[in-house]
């Protein structure tokens, strides 16, 4: 046994040495030597330092939210920049070596602890005090410890992260969803806690002992029926509740569909465009084949309803008024998602999806509620769409009816003068084409 221990140690130390040699190239062999001695000692220090740097990056990350949109561009700029000589700082390799050595050191410690344990076991065996169930009992105790930690984590999660995550919905249908969410949460929390109480205490209570024998209990039809039927009933309730809520959200009566404010949102890599219908209340037709550099939306201006369509910089909505969103996509699938509104529907090329809802809280009120003067609702893309996916957003502002009208009057039309000229020439060309065609 002793021989074996030595062997294992030799192997581990050999590995350490080999890795050390591998990385100690002549260029920085000196520094390597001076620090290598410290490696083992500073193992803990290293971890602490790593944690420090991690912590240090927190404020950095938070500060740079505004600069974030620049992240992508800087990255691409860096990529585009000519890099004739690319030298990676040797320090990089050295750091890596330290981390590997640190890891190997930890491995050594673990191996040593394992050996200490087995030596301890051997001595107890020699003294005739060995309890074959000692480890079994130890593991069962660990399950109890884990149970406590698990429950603490659940509590911490609900109390802290839950409060970070939760904001009441600010739409009519969102309130219904929230109620259902809370009910579901209560149900599953009860089940989660109960199941884990049983699952993790049973191992302790019924751990193997020398003289006990398990209870031969292959089945009990009554109990099994109970725990089939009870979940079935609970689920039926949830299903019915969910089904009717879902229908009420998605199945809007036709007259309400028509009376709502219509807004069209078009997703493209990696931005959103918003189109309001203008005075006539009707969104003009779009034909993707008419997309040109000036008419990037692809609006079909042959449809006169499109002439007064308004190009909006943000999504601005009047409070307490039903809005029907027409969601379309120019290129690939995106997803129109406003977390605060409990609204989401995909933007799919080749088809229009609809989502109708009524916002109930203005941005101003929400800012007061959140006690954050900068808070804004945001609509974000929630379907993987490429490199800019993580920053494809549009501000959503909910205002009073008056503010909404005022804002709307300041927005530009899609049918700009340039476009009108272009359209006129295209039309005349078309008619020419037609005449020639008919002549032929």
């Amino acid at each position, binding site marked *: 046994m002793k021989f074996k221990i030595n062997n294992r140690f030799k192997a581990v130390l050999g590995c350490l040495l080999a890795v050390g040699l591998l990385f100690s190239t002549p260029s920085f062999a000196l520094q390597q030597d001076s620090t290598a001695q410290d490696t083992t000692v500073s193992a803990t220090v290293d971890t602490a330092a790593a944690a420090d740097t991690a912590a240090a990056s927190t404020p950095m990350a938070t500060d740079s939210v505004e600069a974030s949109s620049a992240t992508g561009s800087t990255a691409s700029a860096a990529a585009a920049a000519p890099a004739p000589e690319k030298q990676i700082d040797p320090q990089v390799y050295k750091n890596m070596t330290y981390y590997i050595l640190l890891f190997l050191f930890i491995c050594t410690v673990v191996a040593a602890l394992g050996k200490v344990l087995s030596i301890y076991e051997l001595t107890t065996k020699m003294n005739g005090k060995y309890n074959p169930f000692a480890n079994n009992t130890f593991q069962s105790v660990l399950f109890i410890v884990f149970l406590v930690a698990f429950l603490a984590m659940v509590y911490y999660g609900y109390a802290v*992260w839950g409060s970070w995550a939760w904001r009441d919905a600010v739409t009519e249908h*969102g309130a219904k969803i929230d109620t259902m969410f809370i009910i579901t949460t209560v149900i599953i929390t009860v089940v989660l806690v109960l199941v884990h109480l049983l699952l993790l205490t049973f191992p302790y209570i019924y751990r193997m002992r020398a003289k006990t024998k398990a209870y031969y209990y292959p089945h009990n039809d009554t109990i099994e029926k109970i725990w089939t039927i009870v979940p079935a009933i609970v689920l039926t309730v949830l299903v019915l509740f969910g089904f009717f809520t879902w229908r009420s959200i998605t199945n809007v009566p036709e007259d309400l569909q028509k009376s709502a404010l219509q807004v069209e949102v078009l997703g493209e890599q990696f931005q959103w465009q918003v189109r309001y219908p203008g005075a006539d209340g009707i969104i003009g037709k779009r034909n993707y084949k008419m997309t040109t550099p000036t008419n990037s939306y692809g609006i079909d201006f042959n449809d006169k309803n499109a002439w007064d369509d308004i190009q909006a910089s943000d999504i601005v909505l009047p409070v307490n008024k039903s809005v029907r969103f027409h969601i379309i996509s120019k290129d690939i699938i995106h997803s129109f998602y406003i977390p605060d509104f409990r609204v989401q529907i995909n933007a799919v090329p*080749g088809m229009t999806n609809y989502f109708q809802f009524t916002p109930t809280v203005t941005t101003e009120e929400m800012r007061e509620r959140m006690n954050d003067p900068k808070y804004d609702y945001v609509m974000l893309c929630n379907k993987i769409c490429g490199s800019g996916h993580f920053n494809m957003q549009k501000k959503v502002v909910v205002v009073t009816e008056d503010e909404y009208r005022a804002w709307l009057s300041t927005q530009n039309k899609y049918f700009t003068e340039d476009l009108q000229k272009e359209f006129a020439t295209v039309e005349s060309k078309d008619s020419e084409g037609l005449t020639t065609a008919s002549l032929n």
Partner: protein
Amino acid sequence: MSSTVISHGAAHHDAHDHHHETFLTKYIFSQDHKMIAKQFLITGIVMAVFAMVLSILFRIQLAWPEKDFPILEVFLGKWAEGGRMKPEFFLSLVTIHGTMMVFFVLTAGLSGTFSNLLIPYQLGARDMASPLMNMLSYWFFFVACVVMVASFFVESGPAAAGWTIYPPLSAVPTSIPGSGLGMTLWLVSMTLFIASQVLGGVNYVSTVLNMRTKGMDLWKMPLTIWAFFLTAIVGLLSFPVLVSAVVLLFFDRSVGTSFYLSDLVVQGQILPNEGGSPILFQHLFWFLGHPEVYIVVMPALGLTSEVISTNSRKPIFGYHAMVYSLVGITVLSFIVWGHHMFVTGMNPFLGGVFMITTLIIAVPSAVKAFNYIATLWRGNIRFTPAMMFAIGMVSFFVSGGLTGLYLGNAALDINLHDTYFVVAHFHLVMGSASIFGMLCGVYHWYPKMFGRMMDTKLGYFHFWLTFIGAYLVFFPMHFMGIDGVPRRYYAFTAFPFMEKWVSVNMLITWAAIIAGLAQVAFLWNFFSSIWRGKKATQNPWNANTLEWTTPVEHIHGNWPGEIPTVHRWPYDYSKPGHDTDFIPQDVPFSETMSSNLPHDFEGNEEAVRIQNEWNRANNREIIEG
């Protein structure tokens, strides 16, 4: 039927078979189910490590989006210029991580390994129905893995459209670099993989149906076999649909068809495709995609059923209920796929219907979880590392499964779809649960595979770090999802409301790194024990199933002599009246007169008469015929 012929061959196998074996036929192109199982397992482990490293890379990006890691440039080159990962490459990492984990690790690595190992062993068969097909199944899988890994060496990078590869993103190369050659390789790899699965599945189903030993009727099969059998059926019925999805996508990409494409203006370019529908792809994909999660989790449930029962020294509670719930899951798994598409523009009424079927599937799952707990109740629990992983698996299955009640509910899914809530949900219920099922299987059947024992202390160490690590990684993600943080975001820096999650992201990444490093303990344990582990005994866990009646040394045909006959179900643990706490399946009732129960005779009057005679002679209660 042909058992006499085979046993004849087996009796003389030393003389005829062994000396023809070369290294090539024994270790590489082996047709022996045990060797193929090991091949599947080791390939699966290699892919798991690869996919895990990918996940750690993108976790580093998520935790420190503003920080440079120059070392990344050393390994990734232009994908991480200046030590900062590019968004396209981040998406590639996410995509390939998902694909490899779901298909290569948890489908092939899990059911490939254990179906191959245990179906012949536990049923009492000499080998699979078609050893050749079995070999082909592995090699198709292997080539699929190679092609997938090779896509990292393509100029435009590996596929980056998410593991669900929704077109048009996956179909139009100008929309993302990964949809160039990388995506083609993905599709080729997946087609090969599906071929492998179908070959394997046909084999598993026919072996289970035709090659059970004498006495092994369906209701005497261990739950593992039930799980593998039903998994194979699910795979056989659903994987071919993915082929159709993949082939049509291939046509759209390479031949110019428009199955999935219509009305596209990508990067200012008006594409000629017309009349297709991206939703069609989603239907085809999820028709496999949802059964796939049961393909992943059912074998894990089967393995843990066996391990929990063996180590609680107690019969599995409600064997029939366990089988029926597996059957229920199998059937229902085919009619729930639409719950992935509630907000994609699928007809909302259809969404409502899918919601009903989805929530029904929670019932059999709940029954299984409760039955596990009932099995532990009043057991005599022995904590082998396998047992620890089995308990961990049940824990993940429950905590991950419960959040399915939100996501299966169409109305709640509106706000949770494609957020971190989904990531947390499926990583717990199918990711962690299945990985734990797989690890549980590895620890439990290692002696059967390699004839040696794994180190238990390292096993415990591995279990606790992984168990705690996995919870720390995935539990906080629920809350990010509730807040509306979308998945597959390269950085959480662009939105003020995501700022607060920076600290949580760092916690998650640290937990992931530590749990990832903990896998080194497993790898060391696994590979060093192949040569240096303690020699295993024939039945180290005192288990009942047939594989433990085979000799430790692997032989062609599994049993040196006759295949044992099965007389009883596999869960006679701690049967009152018997001197040991287990009675293997091949022990006839005539040898266990003191412990037989009326139920055991299944109405066989002659058996009851003999038992009663013995009871009279031994002053025991007379049983009713």
